[in-house]
């Protein structure tokens, strides 16, 4: 039963991800990407990670993609404006993305999760209580670094939007 659901979800994920890349219309691309994010949330639910699934929907499908669609609608992309990139640029983009994927797989395959004791002791480690404890105990430093990263990018965005005035 679960296996069938997994195959259906994976087919949706891969199919919509592919359609995101190849569709000509930017808005259609964005809508396919939204469906892709929803199927990813479905994968999280299959791991019984309810919190992660819902937060994924709120942040990616609900906020980031809405902002992206918003920008796409404002930009009014027409087919005539679309410049065709040279073949070398396309090839190098695919190649660098592939290398990044390789590095990520290599890094994650050997990764040892810190919460292994929660798994062994049989606690429901997907529940929000345990998740919060793990984030603020074992993973506190990366957690804080992530927040600093977000803060820096936010300040950067504010600075760019203010560049007309003299600061």
């Amino acid at each position, binding site marked *: 039963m679960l296996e069938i659901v997994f195959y259906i979800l994976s087919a949706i994920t891969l199919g919509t991800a592919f359609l995101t890349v190849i569709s000509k219309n930017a808005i259609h691309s964005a809508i396919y990407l939204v469906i892709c994010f929803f199927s990813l949330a479905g994968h999280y639910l299959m791991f019984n990670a309810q919190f992660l699934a*819902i937060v994924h*929907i709120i942040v990616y*499908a*609900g906020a980031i993609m*809405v902002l992206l*669609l*918003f920008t796409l609608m404002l930009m009014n992309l027409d087919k005539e404006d679309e410049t065709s990139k040279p073949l070398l640029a396309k090839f190098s983009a695919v190649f660098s993305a592939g290398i990044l994927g390789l590095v990520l797989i290599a890094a994650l395959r050997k990764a040892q999760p810190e919460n292994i004791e929660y798994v062994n002791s049989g606690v429901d480690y997907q*529940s*929000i209580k345990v998740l919060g404890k793990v984030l603020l105990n074992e993973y506190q430093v990366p957690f804080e670094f992530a927040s600093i990263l977000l803060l820096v990018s936010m300040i950067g965005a504010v600075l760019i939007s203010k560049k007309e005035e003299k600061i």
Partner: protein
Amino acid sequence: MDSAFIIEKSVVIVAVFALTMFMAMYSTWAERKVAAFLQDRVGPNRAGWGGLLQPLADGAKLFTKEEFFPNTPNRFLFILGPAIAMSTALITSAVIPWGDKIHVFGRDVVLQATDIDVSILYVFGVLSIGVYGIMIGAWASNNKYSLMSAVRASSQMISYEVAMGLAIISILMMSGSLSLKDITEMQTTGGWNVLYQPLAFIIFLICSFAETNRTPFDLAECESELIGGYHTEYSSMKMGFYLFAEYANMFISATIISVIFFGGYHFPFMAECKEAIGMNLTALIGFLALFAKICFFIFFYMWVRWTIPRFRYDQLMHLGWKILIPLAVINIIVTGIVMVLFN
């Protein structure tokens, strides 16, 4: 997973669905009656007693109207828009606790479709994808006024979602749980949340006006600037779905406010009542109490709509980002300090 469980849940789900539809239907009637009352008019009074059959007449009219398609290359997305708006308006009610346990046919039945761990986040998730109905439909209409409306709606919803989420955090700090059932249960013993968190309540209420696209924040369907807003090109039942979804959203947000801040199905002397007349009757009274709270908040939405004029767009953004969000953050800090000092 026995069959009795499936039947029980199906009955609850169908009942909740029917209730949402019924309330959305009669909200359209109530809206006109309230408007008439506030403007010293009579309101609808031809179809049925006091105009009570008016929603049915409206439905029959919308169904028999001509289906008009604008000249758009995206017919599928054009149909998808109202469908998303309607579905997202309906699926939020799945996690709302409508009442306490009742005991029928030798089983304890919980008046809630499902009690998941993260039900508040589920509500926010559904809320955040609700804007797709407006955006996709308006973009597929191929009309620049619709597009302007979609852009307004999406930026407004995203801005107010932040303040809304921050307002809820102080409640979550007190309850220590994300489940709406637990939040209700906490209020049955400790008093309603609105007594402890009046500021969070006010922020949440203001944001809910923006999230449901109601006046004074209905910039997305501002007639004087944007014709009809995002549903300018829609006709027949597709427009009906958009309007209906707005009323369903209003019902749901009134319910969420009642559950989070006004104790849900709790009413004064509930424990004594339970001992005196039994569990089932108490649950029934509890449901009626929740229903009365919901009706009051629906009336409040209408009251505000016919009292306060529309904001200007920059005022709306100013209020959201520069007033409500800082206030919500201050509220979180004060709540944290008070909790550390007194516990």
